[in-house]
């Protein structure tokens, strides 16, 4: 599904060059649930933005669903984002000017879907996150957990095959975090590929596979004794 080989990403500012990713290799199979961990500033978000075609990279190769994405123009990338990828951001990123319903509708609009189908999908998605009754509310009128569930509904509505989540529970308390995690697991069971960045070892443990990033590189987890137990669970699955 998602394959990066020798990928690198350099941020050039006037003062310094930062290698956010270097010789970065990862292969996520169709239907996998991967948790990405790593210290702050190690390049997790950068990895997700490149994976989600939000940004271009400096060197190496990235195949998404068998396509080499570095060749694609902006419009083609928009189309892939719209149709294949769902995003869940740490800061929810709902559009404050739009109510819950209209927020969930945004990606469907760009897909040029018929009104009836849009409505169906929006209500289904909101149903799933348990917020159907809040369709007319504005983001500012919702709690953090509810906002994140709207964001998940927005990601779900388009039935993406790849769901990218950047610390989806980072702004939530444990209780809410569990709820969000259960939702993700449910989506995963339905066949979506999920890549989730998290700081929470407990949540990471519930994924099929853990990837650890340090200094912009994937580190082999077998050399990290702290995570052996989790690996065992992965093996079980």
């Amino acid at each position: 599904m998602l394959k990066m080989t020798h990928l690198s990403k350099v941020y050039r500012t006037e003062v310094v060059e930062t290698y956010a990713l270097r010789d970065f290799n990862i292969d996520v199979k169709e239907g996998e649930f991967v948790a990405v961990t790593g210290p702050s500033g190690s390049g997790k978000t950068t990895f997700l933005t490149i994976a989600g075609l939000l940004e271009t990279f400096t060197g190496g190769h990235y195949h998404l669903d068998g396509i080499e994405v570095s060749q694609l123009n902006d419009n083609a990338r928009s189309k892939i984002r719209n149709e294949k990828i769902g995003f869940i951001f740490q800061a929810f990123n709902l559009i404050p000017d739009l109510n819950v319903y209209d927020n969930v509708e945004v990606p469907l609009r760009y897909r040029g879907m018929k009104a009836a189908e849009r409505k169906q999908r929006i209500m289904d998605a909101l149903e799933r996150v348990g917020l159907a009754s809040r369709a007319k509310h504005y983001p500012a009128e919702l709690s953090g957990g509810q906002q994140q569930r709207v964001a998940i509904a927005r990601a779900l509505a388009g039935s993406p095959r790849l769901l990218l989540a950047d610390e989806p529970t980072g702004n939530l308390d444990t209780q809410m975090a569990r709820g969000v995690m259960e939702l993700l697991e449910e989506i995963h069971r339905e066949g979506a590929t999920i890549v989730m960045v998290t700081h929470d070892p407990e949540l990471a443990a519930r994924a099929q596979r853990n990837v650890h990033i340090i200094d912009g590189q994937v580190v082999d987890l077998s050399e990290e004794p702290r995570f052996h137990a989790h690996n065992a669970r992965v093996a079980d699955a």
Partner: protein
Amino acid sequence: MFAYYFQLGLRSLRRNPILTALMVMAIGFGVGASMITYSVFRATSNNPIPQKSGQLYAVQIANWKTDDLDKGEPPSALTYTDAMAFMQAHKAKRQTALYPIAPSVIPADASRLPIEENSYAWYGDAFAMFDIPFLYGGAWTQAQDDAHAAVVVIGRKLNDKLFNGANSVGKTIDLDGHDYRITGVIDEWNPQPLFFDPVNTGGFGDPIGLFIPFTRAVDLQMSTAGNNNCNDTPGPGWSNWIHSECIWIEYWAELPTTADADAYKRWLTGYAAEQQRAGRFKWAPNVRLRNVTDWLDFNKVVPPESKISLLVSLGFLLICLVNTIGLLLAKFMRRAPEIGVRRALGASRREIYVQFLVEAGTVGLTGGVLGLLLTGVGVLGVGWVFDEQIARLATLDASLVLLTLIAAVLATLLAAFYPTWRAAQVQPAWQLKSN
């Protein structure tokens, strides 16, 4: 605290120089355009004799049939017949008939060319009625009016030209080949609009520099240098003309109290009724008494260009203000997080108000300075649209400078009111919520 807010304002304004420049320009252009056109309007709608404008009345009487009148209003001028009847009746405290004449002064020095001077024929009462200041001597007397005396009052400029500014009372000058004895020299007297005769002057013009008795001018058969309107051919010769229904004379009465004015109006109506009975008027009495301001209004002394351009520029200012409201709103709301922090750190709503109003006031003042520059340039260019006679009355004086600055600041503060109110509504907790 004010200094602190002023500093904050300046810093904020410097942060988006383009937005700031836009606002300053909008205010500057709006206020500038308004002030330029206002300077003209102020000049043309000026009350030229404020101390007496309520006591001086122009007299009108309908001596023509209603068909010949404009919207049923009596004409703006009188016949010789009516003017003389009013003078003889002598019903007001003071009164005068008047008309513009065009005599030329023939200098005693034969090598000099004749001098043309704006002149009027009227009665001795006029000088006191119109509060005309004398430099030397004074008005001629009523006895001299009655005697059709060859006397003259001249203006200061003519006195300078002919007598090098010396007291010339008692000396004689030659007007069109007739000698006149000077009874007085008037000082600067230049009411604008020329309220006593907007009909013939259009309201604006050079100062009047020479006056002779009405009775004398008629004796010499001096035609009017102004308008003469007839609704019928008067027949040949002077005598036929002055006894015709042709109108060419303005008439003023000084009536100190409203009771006087009422009494005069009654008498005037009675006179018209008498004319009707005598068969001269075949219509009911139709008379008017208009005081100075009404008279100027009636004669449309303020040119329509002045009103229209003032209106358009006020509309222009309004648009500039709407523009400024929008830009200020953008500018202030962009700082919602800053406001939230300030509020969280203990700033009261009042303090937020003051901070932002001071910032807006700074924009207003800068816009005012720009507006002042534009007004200065624009006032010089007034002659481009208006008559020179009017253009030279539009000046940038201290009161206009002050008005420009005050208008700019007030307008901006007015525009800032809504954006500031919005800014003050920012809750201390806002920046804690996402986005």
